[in-house]
């Protein structure tokens, strides 16, 4: 597969609208950090070592018989805009995008699995899935890990487990994250309490559009922090329990909001939809906020004409990299805001009929 396949302006496969509690949980991500014995970590290795690792990993992946087909890309051969698009699709990390030394990525054709080579660790196996599917997604990652370990000399130690460059990943090397849309908890200011509770339980909350974008679009990424001293199953179970609790709280908060201020909400949702459909200048903050409102409107049954998968797609497309790709050139921030507005108008107005049809088709399959 060539790189263009992975750059097209569509929501990736893991952003589909199936999966458990898909109205609140957008997606699940599992990441395993692995290193090869006998090589220094990317922090201190030589170009030669980097090259060898890339070769060994790529060969191992070609040798195993996984149902997924992978394509290999060198980071240094990619223009920066393309790197940014892959970051925005969550297929590579911002750190990998900055690497020049033999860093590469192997992406499965359906974009649900990506293996980053020579990021902070030699390997970062990442699996993505729509909705809340911690178990299933981990099973997928673990299976690939199990196949790879037959061909690769993993750095492992009985005491410390899988050895990683940073001690925050050592042990299981497992980072499980769940991306959640929590507008009602945010509106009712309960999110602070949730964040504090999570910190006590050894979990972290982040925004989806990276660090510092805390609650843009009311979307939060919740993941485990602890990787040593707990087994994979315990980590997943703890996260699962926490997420189920948050879903319950969010649903409760939504019900209360709906009961107390229905007309205010209806007004807000429809105004947001109007802005998305007709505005000519759109910052990413405003777009994210409006999309969040419309999404909640759809979840509560107030807005009926917008399918969820269009909203998922828009959430990805409003990011700067995608907007510039859509325009076909690099843009200043103010120009981006105009193109972003145009892109949203196209997605939500004229294509509505067509997209509805496409959505129905998907359900028929």
């Amino acid at each position, binding site marked *: 597969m060539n790189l263009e396949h992975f750059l097209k302006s569509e929501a990736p496969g893991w952003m589909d609208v199936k999966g458990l509690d898909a109205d609140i949980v957008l997606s699940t991500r599992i990441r395993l950090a692995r290193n090869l014995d006998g090589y220094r970590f990317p922090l201190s290795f030589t170009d030669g070592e980097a090259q060898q690792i890339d070769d060994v990993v790529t060969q191992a992946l070609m040798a195993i018989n996984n149902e997924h087909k992978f394509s290999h890309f060198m980071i240094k051969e990619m223009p920066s805009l393309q790197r940014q698009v892959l970051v925005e699709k969550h297929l590579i990390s911002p750190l990998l995008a900055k690497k020049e030394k033999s860093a590469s990525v192997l992406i499965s054709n359906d974009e649900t699995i990506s293996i980053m080579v020579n990021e902070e660790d030699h390997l970062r196996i990442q699996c993505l899935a729509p909705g809340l599917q911690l178990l299933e997604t981990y099973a997928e990652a673990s299976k690939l890990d199990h196949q790879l370990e037959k061909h690769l000399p993993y750095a492992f130690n009985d005491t410390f487990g899988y050895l990683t460059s*940073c001690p925050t990943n050592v042990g299981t090397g*497992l980072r499980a994250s769940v991306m959640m849309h929590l507008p009602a908890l945010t509106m009712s200011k309960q999110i602070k309490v949730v964040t504090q509770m999570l910190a006590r339980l050894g979990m972290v909350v982040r925004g989806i559009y990276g660090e510092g974008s805390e609650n843009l679009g009311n979307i939060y990424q919740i993941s485990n922090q602890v990787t040593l001293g707990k087994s994979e199953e315990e980590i997943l179970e703890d996260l699962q329990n926490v997420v189920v609790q948050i879903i319950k709280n969010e649903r409760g908060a939504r019900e209360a909001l709906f009961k107390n201020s229905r007309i205010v909400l209806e007004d807000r949702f429809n105004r947001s939809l109007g802005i998305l459909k007709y505005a000519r200048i759109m910052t990413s903050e405003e777009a994210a906020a409006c999309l969040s409102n419309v999404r909640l409107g759809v979840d509560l049954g107030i807005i009926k004409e917008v399918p969820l998968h269009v909203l998922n797609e828009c959430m990805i497309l409003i990011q700067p990299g995608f907007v510039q790709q859509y325009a076909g050139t690099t843009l200043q921030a103010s120009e981006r805001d105009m193109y972003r507005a145009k892109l949203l108008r196209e997605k939500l107005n004229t294509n509505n009929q067509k997209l509805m049809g496409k959505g129905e088709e998907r359900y028929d399959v």
Partner: protein
Amino acid sequence: MNCEHCKERQATVTVTQVINGQKSEKHYCEVCAQNFHPFNLDFHKEEQIPIHQLVSNLFGLPVWNNGVEKVQSTSQKATQCPKCGFTFRKFLNEGKLGCPQCYETFSTQLPQVLTKIQAGTKHSGKAPGTPSHHNEWIKKQIESTREQLQLAIADERFEDAAKLRDEIREMERKLDRGGVDTP
């Protein structure tokens, strides 16, 4: 009270330090306090970048206390990783280790760092070559979902019960297929 440093001027500034939970108070005059302010001190030390301080603070190792620092760095110089040349001090500066061998080299010092950021210091998850305990976990999940189902039925929450029943069926289907779901 006179300044503890120059012992001439009136002490007007109190400097409170907490190192490893040990609180100490010093009283200085304004002139001496400027020299003794922890931020001033840090500025004068070239190698001390904020991130280093951050990492060291995180791992609870004193940065400010010069005497202790010197003793530590000399004793740590002795242990240098044979594979990548990292010292424990370098690890604290970077926040990262240089190679897998480092874990072996610093196996005595690492646990004190790990207890601060992890749930334990001993790995209890899977190891290469061992089959995963995935099936057992699914079985446990089924069990707990069944309990929830009973509760739902008792409370006459039939919609929830139907959902739970479907979840159990789904999990049982997965179990039949060897724990790995391949859609």
